[in-house]
């Protein structure tokens, strides 16, 4: 383990720095709060010659992802980033990237969705893209954002499925935290040059995504579904290999805290899960045997790892920063329940939605909420 430097950086700049370290070739970009500073940082790196890449200042997010997907089909390593309505605007191109098996990596800086307008974080944007066939990470610190972008490229290019790296607007994107930046040669060892097995190549003409008949289409979709599930061991391998090379660890498919003897398990994602470590400490001080289970991977949902991590007879308190419209509560709780059904009859699941549109989530507030949920 060699750390080249420790710097103070925002989450947005941590993402941009990881993109630079990944030696990305093409970056189409379009501004949207709070993602904008990623694109500003990357365009500056390109203009100053610090990053040997092309920055394409496109006219909208739909075009940003379209340019990224096409550049990927031409054989380049590509990155873009967005937030909120920008992510929604990309929706059909998200499907093209996954259906076409193009290993694009994108950061989504989580922000609530219009209408009405909000600038601040919740997870409705990324969770609304759950069924687009992208692998989705959710990160809880600036360091994890940096580490996960690099791991995302490795996984995406191994299995030819695009990867979305999500983290909260402002709380992560705009807050400074210490950042360990590994030596470039270590990163190069972890993430070798992108050598796609197929690309648009006039020497070997072939075409991408012609019309298919029903049986062929069904087969492609089935393979995508299977390969998304097959990415779980690759995610674990990437996290382990990254740890072996850099010494850093954020968890693999999940991250846990004080779970050994936990009776009450708190399940949440992103920055609120970092704060929840402190809530767990408060609850422990109050005599409640609490622990934290934070899925890093939301899609594919790490069912087996969650099942294995839950102690016998645990009560799981799911804190969702999104709504599962048409159901009571949030999407994480529904995902968890579907995993547990028929497999763990000993587990109780309770759920609250909180932090919508950036409502502040302090350790004491969340500890109080969890204690109140125990009495429900």
């Amino acid at each position, binding site marked *: 383990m060699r750390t080249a430097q420790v710097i103070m950086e925002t989450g947005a700049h941590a993402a941009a720095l990881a993109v630079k370290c990944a030696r990305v*070739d*093409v970056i*189409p970009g379009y501004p949207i709060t709070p993602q904008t500073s990623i694109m500003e940082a990357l365009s500056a790196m390109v203009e100053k010659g610090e990053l*040997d*890449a*092309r920055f*394409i*200042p*496109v*006219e*909208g997010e*739909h*075009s*940003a992802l*379209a*340019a*990224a*997907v*096409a*550049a*990927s*089909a*031409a*054989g*380049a390593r*590509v990155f873009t980033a967005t937030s909120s309505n920008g992510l929604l605007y990309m929706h*059909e*191109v998200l499907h*093209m990237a996954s259906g076409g098996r193009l290993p694009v990596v994108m950061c989504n800086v989580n922000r609530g969705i219009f209408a009405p307008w909000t600038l601040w974080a919740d997870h409705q944007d990324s969770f609304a893209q759950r069924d687009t066939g992208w692998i989705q990470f959710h990160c809880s610190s600036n360091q994890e954002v940096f580490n996960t972008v690099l791991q995302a490229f490795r996984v995406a290019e191994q299995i030819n499925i695009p990867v979305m790296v999500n983290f909260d607007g402002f709380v992560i994107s705009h807050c400074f935290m210490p950042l360990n930046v590994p030596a470039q040669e270590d990163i190069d060892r972890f993430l070798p*040059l992108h050598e796609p097995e197929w690309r*648009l*190549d*006039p020497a*070997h*003409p*072939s*075409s*991408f*995504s*012609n*019309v*298919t*008949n029903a049986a*062929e289409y069904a087969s492609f979709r089935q393979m995508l579904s299977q390969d998304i599930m097959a990415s779980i061991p690759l995610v674990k391998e990437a996290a382990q290999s990254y740890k072996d090379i850099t010494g850093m660890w954020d968890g693999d498919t999940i991250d846990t805290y004080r779970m050994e003897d936990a009776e009450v398990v708190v399940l949440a994602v992103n920055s609120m899960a970092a704060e929840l470590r402190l809530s767990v400490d408060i609850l422990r001080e109050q005599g409640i045997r609490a622990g934290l289970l934070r899925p890093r991977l939301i899609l594919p949902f790490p069912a087996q790892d969650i099942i294995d991590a839950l102690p016998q007879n645990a009560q799981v308190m799911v804190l969702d920063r999104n709504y599962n419209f048409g159901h009571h509560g949030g999407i994480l709780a529904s995902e968890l329940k579907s995993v547990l059904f028929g497999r763990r009859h000993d587990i109780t699941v309770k759920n609250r939605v909180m932090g919508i549109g950036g409502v502040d989530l302090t350790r004491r507030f969340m500890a109080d909420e969890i204690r109140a949920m125990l009495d429900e």
Partner: protein
Amino acid sequence: MTTSIKKLPDTEQVLSGNGACGGCPATMALRMVGKALGTNAIMLLTPACSVASMGMTPKLGYNWPCINICFATAGASASGITHAIEIMKEKGRLQGELPTVFSWVGDGGTYDIGFQALSAAAERNENIIHFCYNNEAYSNTGVQRSGATPRGSFTTTTPTGKVQPKKNMPMLMLEHNIPYVATATVAYPGDLYDKVVKAKNISGMKYIEILAPCYLGWQFDMADTVQMSRMAVRSGAWLLWEAENGKISFNSPSSHIINGKRDADPVNEYVMKQGRFNRLLNGADAARRIAEIQGDVDREIAFMRERAKIMI
């Protein structure tokens, strides 16, 4: 001088037995594009007739690397590819002459849903060729109105005839200050070939629009496809021109109409030979309707004649 038919290369990039309708003008035009671009090119297609024509997975009727993309994205997607291959060459991962990146898009993907991304690509002066094969309607979905449909034309969404005139898309592209804009049509293959060769050798954004009379949408006998294209030009309903660095020049025979050496044929014969017009021209208002169509054609000729005089 325009390249003569016998001097056109043997190269065939459109392969026999593709899925296009018999007599398809888009396929006819694409053959000439293939002769001009050769094999070293990358083709992008938005949903359109030429996607239906290209064959179903795993068969391909064009001899290029091709990518099907989302409908609105021709400008953005072509930009992504051109930057990708340029940076990969700079980094030593690609060798040899870089391929030409070209989009092959209908009027829907150009005039309508694709306009935003295309305009942005032109404003950025991306190193691509955007071809619009313009059949003046959404032929692939069964002939609905587009921004390229002329006034008075029947489509399935303008059953009593389109009320508005078409927009002048090549002029809109010219006003993006791009290095090359041209119009062409299938009756003049040498003219089309020369324009594509010229575009291929210019760096930056190139826009070439090809009028593609579609017998299905326009409702005429498919054997008359080339004849219909010729009549469009002779009547002035389609003008052949090109603009290098903003300077417009007209190509024969449109140049003769513009400079007054030859009168444009009245639109009557052109219009009456097409079911999309003539099915609406059997009532008391026929004369007024034809006059409207003629008025739109006359206005465009007059406008282009004057616009070409601006040589800044």
